[in-house]
Each structure stands twice: as C-alpha cells, then as structure tokens.
C-alpha cells in the first residue's frame, strides 16, 4: 500500500529525516550522559564497583575539600584577572592592525599566527622561553640588570606567566575585534575630528562603545573558556612538577596551577572518584550559567546597540 501524505506531512517527514543525525547524537552523546552524570554525582562510583546512592555526600565532601576551594580560587584568578587582560591586549592589537599603514597584511599574519599553534607545542615553547637560567626572557631581563623570577616554577609568577602565554595566543580574539572595528562607521570619527577630538578621545568615546557588543561576545566566550581551561596549564604544570616516582604532580608549583578542570580530571582518572568528579562537573555547569547570566545582566549598562 502506498502511503499518501499531504504536502505538509511530507515536508515534516523530510525535515525529521534530515535531522536524524542530530537527534541521535543529542540523545546518545548529550541528553543521556547529562542525566547519567547527574545520577552519578549522587553515588559512590568507581569503574570497578557498582554505584551506590549516597545522596549529597559528594557535594558535601567537596565543600569541605581545601583543594576544591584552591581550584576555585585559581580558576577565578584566571577568569577575573586573566580574561580581561587578554581582551584588553587583543583590543589594542586590533586597534594597531586597523590602522591604515602599508604592510598591514604582513603584521596581521605575525599577530595571528601564534593563535593557530597547537597549545601543547606553545606550552613547550613558553616553558623553554621562561626557563629560569637560560630562558629568553630572563636573559633579556639580565641585559638590563634585572634578576628575573623563576616564572612557571614560582607559585606567585606561574599564573602571570600563563596569562602572558595566553596573550601571545589571543589572535582569534583579535580577529573578532578587528571585524568589529571595521564595522564602525567612518563618519563618526570624521565628525569627532571636526569637533577637535584627539585619538584617545576617539577611542574612548566612539570605538569602545561601538564595539561593546563584540566585547560582550569575547567576554562571555572568554569566561567560559577560562572555567574549562585544561591543556595549557596541564602541560605546563605536569612538566614542572614531576614527583620522585615520576608521576606528574598536577597543579604544581605548590598548587598554584591547580585549576578546576585539572582537579576534576585528577579526581576522575587519578583517584578514581567518579562520583566526586561528576559532582564537580555539575557545579561547574551551574557556575558557568550563573557567571554568564550575571555578565549578560550587567552588560545592558555598558553595551551599546545601534538602533536601526
């Protein structure tokens, strides 16, 4: 029997047919794992034992866990200090690259190239550059008579070193800013020039408000990224601290690089505390939601949208 469908019914059927990959993927790789990890977070679970319901025990344990709070503190440092520095730096770079100068495409390539370097290779390179004895940075500082710190080996300097490295790799933020800058109408600057504004006034009163939606986008993606950052600090700190047994001591020096994702990873794969790791993942999800919502809420005060 041939099934006759109305045109609308046929369209719906085709729509769902083309959507099938996403439906299957959403169910198996997202929805089901979400429910499952929520359940796991309330159990005492390791790969070898069957899960046993323990209620809020994992969450309560985390709140008492000093390493958990250290990981939160370190991560918030990167969110509150690191992300704005990266954004500001990328904005300045974009301003420079937006000037009408000859050879600009050459400079753009130079500025953007580090962002495509694999994080792992970049981390290696910067470990070498920040080498306390023979590293490039301390050698250059030595020429002007400054005795440089030990950078990644020093618990005070390790996070600033990481931020410097991340600034070097911030080319994609710069590209997004550059696209935003090119959308600012030239007439605004011309009008300001007639009024006698200098370059700094033009940046503060025209450029910054005009690209504020771009800043909001970069800020939110940057915040989310900083909460989940793993590879760069993992690489740097795993190579810095190798304990006597040869096992990488994550978060070294002295826990200064113990970020949220790293501690989660450690709970999951090193300590085999899967329930605790799942609880951490859910806390992370909620933290990201809260911070994103707060940012969006306060952004109404400082973002400017053209009314068209």
């Amino acid at each position: 029997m041939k099934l006759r469908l109305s045109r609308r019914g046929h369209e719906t059927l085709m729509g769902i047919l083309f959507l099938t990959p996403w439906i299957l993927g959403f169910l198996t790789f997202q929805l089901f794992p979400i429910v499952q990890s929520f359940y796991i977070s309330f159990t005492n679970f390791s790969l070898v034992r069957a899960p046993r319901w323990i209620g809020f025990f994992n969450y309560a344990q985390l709140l008492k866990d000093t390493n958990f709070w250290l990981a939160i503190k370190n991560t918030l440092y990167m969110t509150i200090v690191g992300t704005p520095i990266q954004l500001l730096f990328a904005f300045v770079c974009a301003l420079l690259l937006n000037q009408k100068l000859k050879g600009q495409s050459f400079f753009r390539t130079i500025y953007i190239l580090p962002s495509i370097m694999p994080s792992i290779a970049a981390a290696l390179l910067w470990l070498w550059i920040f080498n306390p004895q023979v590293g490039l940075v301390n050698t250059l500082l030595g020429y002007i008579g400054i005795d440089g710190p030990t950078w990644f080996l020093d618990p005070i300097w390790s996070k600033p070193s990481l931020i410097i490295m991340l600034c070097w790799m911030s080319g994609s933020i710069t590209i997004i800013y550059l696209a935003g800058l090119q959308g600012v109408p030239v007439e605004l600057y011309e009008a300001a020039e007639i009024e006698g504004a200098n370059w700094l006034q033009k940046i503060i009163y025209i450029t910054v408000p005009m690209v504020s939606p771009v800043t909001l986008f970069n800020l939110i993606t940057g915040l989310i990224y900083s909460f989940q950052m793993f590879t760069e600090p993992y690489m740097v700190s795993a190579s810095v601290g190798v304990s006597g047994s040869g096992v990488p001591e994550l978060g070294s020096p002295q826990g200064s690089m113990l970020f949220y994702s790293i501690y989660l990873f450690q709970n999951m794969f090193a300590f085999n505390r899967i329930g605790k790791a799942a609880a951490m993942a859910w806390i992370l999800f909620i933290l990201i939601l809260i911070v994103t919502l707060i940012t969006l809420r306060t952004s109404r005060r400082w973002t400017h949208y053209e009314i068209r």
Partner: protein
Amino acid sequence: MVLKGLTDKATIRVSSPVLLRRFFRALLGYGAIGVIGLFFFIPWFWLVSSSLKTADRMFDLPPQWIPNPAQWSNYVTAVTTLPFFLYLKNSLVICSLVVIGRLISCSLVAYSFSQIRWPGRDQVFILVLATMMLPFQVTMIPLYVTFSRLNLIDTIVPLVLPAFFGNAFFIFLLRQFFLTIPHELTEAAMLDGATHFDIFTRIILPLSKPALATVALFSFLWTFTEYLGPLIYLIHEQNWTLTLGLRGYLGQHTAMWSSLLAASVLFTLPIIILFFFMQKTFIEGIATTGLR
C-alpha cells in the same frame, strides 16, 4: 623632491605642519605595531633557533641568536627517537574521519533547519544552540564510563563517532550560510520534481563550498591539536596522536630540549602551511562566527 612632486601633481596645498603630523603619526603607528609585533615574532624565532642548537650550546650564556653550527640532525633525532610518523598517521586518520563525519552530519542537519519547513523547527534550533553552553566535563564522565563498558577504550571510536552526529557550532554556521541561498533556486527545482535529497546534493552543497571549507578547516585544526580527548581514550603508545606523543616525549627526555623543540616545529608546520593556503577561510571563519 618626491613630496613636492606629489603635491604639485594633485594641485592640493597641504601645509607642512599637517604633513609633519601625518609623518609622526605613521612613525608612531609603525613603532607601536612593530614593538608588539616583536612580542609575537621573537618566540617563533627563538623556537626555530633553539631547535637547531647542539646540546652543549643550548645552555650557553649569553645565548646564541643564530645557532652556529646549525644542527639539522635534531630534526632527524626528533622523528626517530619518537615514532613521529606513526603518531602523525594516527592523528591524520582521526582528523580525516572527524572532518568527513562533521561535513556529512552537519550539512544534513543544517539543510533541515534552513530549507525544509516543519512544525517546531525554530524551537528545536534554539535547543541546538543551547547545547553549546554545556561544558564538556558534564558529558565526558558518563561517556567515558559507557565507552569503557563497551570495551572501546584505546580505540579511535570514542574520538571519531560523535562527529557523525553533528556539532552545534558547525550546524549553526552552515544553517546561516544555507539561508543566504536564494529560495527561487530551490523552488524552481521543486517544481521540476526534484526531491529534497536532489536539492541538497545538486544545489545546496555545490553552492556552499566556502562554508563547507570553513567546517573542514576548523574540524581539522581542533582535532589535530586536541589533547584531552586522546589523553583520556588512547592508552597504548602505538595508538597515540601527535599531541600525546609530544607530551610523552617531554616526560622521558626532559633534557633534550633541542629535539623536543624540533618536534614542536614539525608538529606546527602542517598547520602553518594550511593557514597560508586558507588564510581567507580561516580569518572569515573566526570573524563571522566567533569560532576559536
């Protein structure tokens, strides 16, 4: 004088203070862009320079900027002490499967969201966008448990399979592109009796090459440089990707900085070549969608 000639030809009068100011502004512009440019450039120079040093020159003070003698054999050491080409092959196998999977699945789904009308379509699309907010840590744990129960740890399946079921970022990107394709084209084809599959393969896909190139490029880049996924799922050395290999090498040969950096150069080189060939796709991909 060149300047005089210029003003004569254009018959405009530019007073000398204005010219002087422009000159200083350009000088200042070049100065600033150059200084920060050095910050971006010197690490590359230092990388290549250090990768060519002999082991005993490596720790010289003051350091040599241009290594003399240049020890090219560091590159040979890098690809022989570590099974570089095996890792490269493993990485490329995973990357190509991911790229193929993403291209097929994301374009099909994006077609459904852009060219077919069905009830609830836009609400479901918002759900797709919402999944971007979900941190990977939430799904990583149960997925790892499931894959280990299915005995798929230490295979490429956990790294490759999800790519065949779409990705919110790329679905979004392709949908936006498909929406720009004029409706008249697809409607005319419909009147001629074409099915949705015909329209998809003969009209939409051929017209969307730039967007598909963006999907392929970023899928490749992200997968080629990914570390956490392979770290979790690949155990034995013969299955490692380049990222894992490089990390393992650092663990074993901490002192062999020069060949380690040579390996980093070799690892980065394919990406740089790709960047120069696809610079436009790359920059537009970031600028229009905010992919990072």
